[in-house]
C-alpha cells in the first residue's frame, strides 16, 4: 500500500466517524494552531518538513490572536501566561475537569500542552470579570492540603472560640470545658 493509499484510508475513517464537515473544521483548526495557513497546498515533502519544524504557537501566541475588547484580550492573555507557567490547570486532569464542567469532553489522546486551543474556545465565552476571578484564584485552585487548613482553623478558632483551650497548650486556656460538637 502506498503512502497516499494509507492517507486516503486514514482520512476515510475520520470522515466516516465525524463527517466531512467536521473533519474539514478540524483541519482548519490545525492549520491555525500549527501555523500552516501560509503553506501551499498540495504540499511536497519539503513543505511538510518545514511545517513540522516550524514552532507551534504557544498559549500566549494563541491568546494574542483573540479578537475582542482590550479587557477580554488582557484577561485571556493573563490566563495563557498562567497556563504556560503551570499555575492554571496544572494537569491534563484539571483541563479535562474544566472542560467537563462546561459540558465539553477532551479526547483521551490530547496532552495538556495540546489542549490550550480547546481551553481558549471556552475562555472567549466567559465574561471578563469571571476570567479575572479565575486568574485571581489560581494559587488557591490546586489540591487541598492539611497544613494551610489546620493553620486557618487555628487562627479562626482563636477569634471564634476565645474561651476554648488550644490543644497546643496555649496559656490562654480557661477552666471551662469546650462545648460539645454535634
Amino acid at each position, binding site marked *: 500500500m502506498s503512502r497516499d493509499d494509507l492517507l486516503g484510508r486514514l482520512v476515510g475513517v475520520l470522515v466516516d466517524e465525524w463527517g466531512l464537515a467536521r473533519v474539514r473544521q478540524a483541519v482548519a483548526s490545525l492549520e491555525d494552531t500549527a501555523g500552516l495557513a501560509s503553506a501551499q497546498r498540495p504540499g511536497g515533502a519539503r513543505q511538510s518538513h518545514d511545517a513540522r519544524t516550524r514552532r507551534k504557537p504557544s498559549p500566549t501566541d494563541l491568546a494574542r490572536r483573540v479578537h475582542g475588547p482590550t479587557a477580554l484580550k488582557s484577561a485571556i492573555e493573563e490566563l495563557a501566561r498562567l497556563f504556560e507557567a503551570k499555575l492554571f490547570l496544572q494537569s491534563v*486532569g484539571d483541563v479535562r475537569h474544566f472542560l467537563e*464542567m462546561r459540558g465539553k469532553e477532551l479526547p483521551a489522546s490530547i496532552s495538556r500542552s495540546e489542549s490550550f486551543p480547546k481551553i481558549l474556545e471556552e475562555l472567549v465565552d466567559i465574561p471578563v470579570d469571571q476570567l479575572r476571578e479565575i486568574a485571581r484564584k489560581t494559587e488557591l485552585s490546586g489540591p487541598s492540603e492539611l497544613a494551610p487548613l489546620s493553620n486557618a482553623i487555628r*487562627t479562626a478558632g482563636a477569634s471564634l472560640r476565645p474561651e476554648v483551650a488550644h490543644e497546643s497548650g496555649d496559656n490562654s486556656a480557661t477552666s471551662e470545658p469546650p462545648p460539645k460538637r454535634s
Partner: protein
Amino acid sequence: MYLRPSSPRRRMCSHPRKATMARKGGPLCVCVINMKGGVGKSTIAALLARYAFRSRRADVLAIDLDPQANLSQAFMRGSYSAFLQEQRPSIVEVFNGYRPPSATATAPSPLDSEEVVHTIYEVQERTLQLIPSRFDFSDNLTAAIRPDPKVLANFLAHHFRHKDLIIIDCAPTESILTHAAYHASGLVLVPVKPEFFATVGFPLLRESLRQFRSINRGHRISVAGVVINNAFYDGGNDGGPEKARALREIRAEAAANSWCVFENEIPFSRGFPKLMRGDNSYSGNSYMFYNFAAEFFESIGLSTAPLQNVA
C-alpha cells in the same frame, strides 16, 4: 414485616415528578443523610451536585450543614482557608439571620443571600453554588436560646426558588441540624456502606423521620432511596461473607421501611478521596459513580442534557 413483591435490588426507584428544567414547583430539595458517619455523605453530595450541574445542565445549590465542613472543603479547596480567616458569611449567619459586626462594620447588618453563597462553577446563566459551613456552627446553635430549625427552609424559600436542585449534606448525629435539613427538603437520600455499624443508622433514621412527620403533619418528605456505597471492588475481591451478610441486612431493612434501593451501587475507588481533595490527576473507576447519579436523577425527575464532544 411486609416485603414488596419484586426484589428491592432490581426495582428502580421512581417518584412522580415532572421532568422539566424550569421547575414550576420550585427546586428539587434533597438531603443526604445517615445517622452513621463515614458512609460517604459528603462525597456523594459533592459528586451529585457536580453531575447535576455538568450533565443535567442544572442550576444547583449545595448546602453544608455539617460542622465538619467536608463538603465546603471539597468545593472551595484552597479558598476555604481564606474564607475561615476572613470570617466571611456562612451557614452560621443564615441561622443567626444577620451579619454580626466586623472589622469593617460596627453594627449588625441584614444578611444578603448573595453574600452567603460561594459560586463554585458558572456557565452562562447557570451556577453551582455553595453555602459553606464552619466548625463553630454547632456552638452557635447550642448557645442560642431557642434555635429555630425552620430558619434554613425560610431562607431557601425566599432566596433560592429559581434553583433546579438544592442538595444538603447533613451531619451524622441527630440534632437540630437534622430537623433543619428535613424542614428544607422534600426528599431524603440515604447512603450506606455494607458494614454492620453502618446499617444501625437505618432504624435511627427511620425513627427520626417518623418523629419529624408526626410533629410536622403538613410537611411531605419521602425517602428517595438507599444507595449502597463501597459496594464492590471493580474487578477484584468482593468483600467476602461479612459484606454479603451486611448487604442482605440492608435490603431487608430497606424493604421493611418501604425504602427502595438504587440498582446502581457505588464501588470502592481510590479516585474518590482524590476528587474530594481536588486532585484530578487520577480518577480510577470513580466514573462508575455516574451510573448511580443518572439513575438517581431520573428517579426524582431532573431532566437530561447530553454532553457535547469537543473533537
